[in-house]
């Protein structure tokens, strides 16, 4: 386990970058709010980033045991299916995670 000072540095770095990403664009980007390129990126970036992050979090699954792969596929389908059906983010997240934890812990 890394020591407290090191984790504090990681927290400070990510907080500083997050703040810069939130604050600097008000000076730099706001004057460009009618720019077609900025609008195009703001339309397509959110979906792309979320898809890539979702895949990033399951990057170890292809190398995992066959049973764990099956549990992951089931949990992904349940989460996505619930979200498409009910549009209730918390419900989808908790039911999907609950099923995965139950399958992983019991089998």
């Amino acid at each position, binding site marked *: 386990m890394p020591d407290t000072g090191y984790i504090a*540095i990681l927290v400070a770095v990510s907080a500083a970058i997050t703040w810069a990403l939130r*604050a600097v664009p008000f000076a730099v980007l706001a004057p460009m709010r009618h720019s077609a390129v900025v609008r195009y990126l703001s339309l397509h970036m959110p979906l*792309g980033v979320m898809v*890539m992050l979702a895949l990033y979090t399951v990057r170890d699954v292809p190398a995992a045991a066959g049973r764990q792969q099956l*549990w992951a596929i089931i949990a992904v389908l349940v989460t996505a299916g619930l979200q498409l059906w009910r549009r209730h983010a918390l419900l989808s997240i908790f039911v999907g995670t609950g099923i995965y934890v139950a399958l992983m812990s019991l089998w």
Partner: protein
Amino acid sequence: MSVLRLAAPIGLAFLPLGMALGFLVVHAGLAWWWAPVFAAVIYAGSLEFLMVGLAAAGAPVATVALTTLIVNSRHVFYALSFPLHRVRSVPGKTYSTYVLSDEAFAVGVSPAARTWTSGQILAMQAGLHLTWTVSAAAGALLGAALPIERLQGLEFALTALFIVLAIDAYSQHPDPLTALLAVACAVAAGLLAPGQMLVWAFAAFTALLFARLLAERRGA
């Protein structure tokens, strides 16, 4: 009153999600108080969930910096419509940008908030910030008291979170090609550069978006 009415449902959603973050912090072997520190200082939900793994593994500073850049790049576009011009004073604007989360943005640009004063916008943001921090602390304390180390697969909460956010983003702007390009970039980066998957996927995706924009302009 309208501040509370708009922000309360989000605060309610923060409670279980913040507690889940606290659970994960303890589950990863970190001290419980890192949960409220992550929540209050970083205050960027999905990044905090990723940070649990990165901090527990003692990831290099550069990896954490790049991951933050990629995960929070979407915040760049919030400047296009968030009403920061209505927030008065430099400390007010400083705090407002520091805690400009996805949820604060969504409330701030909603039609109901169009008449809000500086104080109302800041109260909404501070309320969400505080609720998130307290929820994370409560989850971590609860997790420290329970035998949760026997639970496996808690980290799937992060996967589920991104699946939900991706589906929501898709329904706001349904574009199958964008989704397909993102899948292709992530899979290719995962195969070719497994250690730096996120960075390469993001770089390739951004390049492809620009290429597509150029192609669409030529075609038009």
